[in-house]
């Protein structure tokens, strides 16, 4: 019995500590990140470490974004929405002005939220620290993160009170700014220019269909929508309107766009449907949706 116990003990110890030294090189097999070898991210009180993020990247991300972060993962050819190219470091969802790098928190929020209607899921199942580590590693792919600093987040003024006038004015801006050319008069993403649009990689890109859901790529809150107008979606045909739209007008536009999402209840839609004009407009859209089947949700 004593010998058996000795054996058990030794086996237990051996099984825990037998670590073949040849495998120590495995972590080094993945391609080296360029140009920065190490980066940090700062999100709230979290500090992300790219060295740890690297391990996470090669567990979760490389299949689409590629081992070099250039969006050429082995699965990329089969995706009709191309993965982000981290080498170019051009990001759609930012709180910073167009042309600038996003903040660490912007990237962190993108990871946490995912991108609806794309193949990029929400990584909310990861811990906050893991997401911060991934952000830090993503920054090691591009020299931009060495040469430039993140942009300064744009100010987002408090949302004004929701009124029918605000919605109507937003509708006028929708026409005046020619949003309909891409997004269509009813916000279905089927405007006359829609089929011609390409992104910065010359890949076809579709304008957002407001009628389908209330989760836009960059978040579902009114503040998120506001930021899209004022920062633009870099790398896409969606420009920043910061120079041509006043903040109060941008809020009116937000209120109007919410009424286009007539399958998703919102205070804006409720208010708008409460008016004779709004009720007629929304009802007509719903009838049309039924007739065309365009609102079919699989």
């Amino acid at each position: 019995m004593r010998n058996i116990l000795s054996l058990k003990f030794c086996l237990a110890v051996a099984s825990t500590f037998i670590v073949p030294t040849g495998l120590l090189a495995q972590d080094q097999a993945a391609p080296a990140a360029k140009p920065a070898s190490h980066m940090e991210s700062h999100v709230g009180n979290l500090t992300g470490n790219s060295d740890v993020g690297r391990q996470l990247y090669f567990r979760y991300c490389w299949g689409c974004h590629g081992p070099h972060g250039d969006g050429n993962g082995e699965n990329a050819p089969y995706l009709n929405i191309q993965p982000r190219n981290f080498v170019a470091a051009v990001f759609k969802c930012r709180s910073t002005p167009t042309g600038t790098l996003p903040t660490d928190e912007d990237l962190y929020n993108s990871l946490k939220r995912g991108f609806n209607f794309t193949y990029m899921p929400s990584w909310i199942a990861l811990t906050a620290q893991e997401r911060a580590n991934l952000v830090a590693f993503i920054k090691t792919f591009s020299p931009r993160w060495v040469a430039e600093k993140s942009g300064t987040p744009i100010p987002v003024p408090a949302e004004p009170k929701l009124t029918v006038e605000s919605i109507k004015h937003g509708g006028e801006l929708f026409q005046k700014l020619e949003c309909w050319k891409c997004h269509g008069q009813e916000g279905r993403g089927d405007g006359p220019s829609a089929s011609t649009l390409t992104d910065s990689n010359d890949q076809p890109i579709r304008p957002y269909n407001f009628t389908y859901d209330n989760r836009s790529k960059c978040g579902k809150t009114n503040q998120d929508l506001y930021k899209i107008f004022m920062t633009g979606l870099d790398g896409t045909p969606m420009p920043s309107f910061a120079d041509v739209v006043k903040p109060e007008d941008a809020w009116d536009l937000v209120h109007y766009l919410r009424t286009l999402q007539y399958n998703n209840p919102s205070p804006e839609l409720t208010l708008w449907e409460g008016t004779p004009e709004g009720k007629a407009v929304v009802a007509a859209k719903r009838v049309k949706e039924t007739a065309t089947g365009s609102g079919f949700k699989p």
Partner: protein
Amino acid sequence: MLDWVSPGMNGVRVRRFATLGYVVSVLVLVLSACSPASAIPAFARKYGMPCSACHEAWPKLSPFGQQFKDNGYQLGNDRDAPIFQQAAYWPIAFRITPNWHMERNENTVVDGAGESQVLATVTTRGFDYTGMDILTAGTLAKNFSFLLVPSSDETGAFHFESVNVRFDNLLGTPWLNVKVGKFELDNLLSEKRIVTLSANGGFYQNYHFQPWLSPGLPSPSYVFGLGDNQLGIEWMGHSANDRTRVSAALLQGTDGNPDFQAGNGNAAGRAYEGYIAASQAFEAGSLGLQRVGGFAYFGQAPTYPQYSQGGAPIFGTGIGNKPYYRAGFIGMWYLKKLDFTTMYFYGHDNVFLATGTPSNLGTDGLPLGAHAPSWNGALIETHYTWSPQLILINRYELIRMKQQTLDSNPGDLGNVDALTFGFRYYPFINTRAGFAFHNEYSIVWNRKVQLSPLTGLPIDQTSSSLFFGIDFAF
């Protein structure tokens, strides 16, 4: 060098095992020259993610994989429904493991000279292969998911390991998901996710243990297996980030077998069983995601069936139900690349079940000195995930009887110690298939379960497995 002293028919024999560690080390060194890991490759192909996204080491789920499963095999970005897939996409995969293995059973009663019986160490070894799982799973539509797993044993005889449909996010909430059919129990430490494969190490001892009636005489077991897939209906709910998970299931008392048959000639009853589980995860800074939870499996099993005129039991007619239960707590503790899974386990069987006594005989029908047996169990499983490509595995399980079925039994009858260690190495990882070299050693000590034909006294029985396999899925 370690010496292993074992009693055998020729007396004390010495076995040297120190070379084992060296063999494992050399194998790993040879295999280490290979790149980024993959369970249901159909999902990997659908979503373009490497298997390592959903599996720490397949089939063991990562938190992301657990959330994906809890969401009904959906990522939740409106690309999950089949309508978004190319028409040619077929959600099907298979898994099988060609292998070489050696099984050694000590203190096995075999025929000796003349008509005598002696104890011997029986060893079998050679090339072999496992059964095969055909895995089909996915969504039928948004928030309607399914899993179908026709599974064969090594001979090619098929059965259905899983057959279920799940209604996800009912009323728009992740707290309301309903699954119907034959399914994996929502167990924090699921045997269907076990990362060891050998004959001795490929299951959790605690999940299948039933007390011995007496030395040399196994319990007249009713059908039960906490690690088995079960037939029934399950409600499951979880928070959006999957940190909080709860479930309750109503199960048919047939251990997952169809047609009200319990298998092994057992008289399945008309009884239902219940299973509940809950767990909570919390973040611990850079250490990772920690999770603690509990479970309870409780039910009743028949003690006798109704018989046909010919004397055969009629399936599904078992009556005289008597209760049993299993309960436990599980913790999953992460220290960066090192993680520990710990479990405390408690089991209790009714005395009629434990003694195989039809309950209609009453207490007078029970053997002299019979008690309702109970026992404690524990498990610690350690993983070191060096990279998504390599995981080292170590597990130790024990079972200690608290109350023997019969007063005449030795106090440690049926006690179990089980040790398993090994590693899985994935020479490549891609978004299409899974491949792993799986190497494992497992040894199980069962106390006093054998009667010596020489002395008539109860003795221990030890069995071990050495397993080298190529585990692949496509």
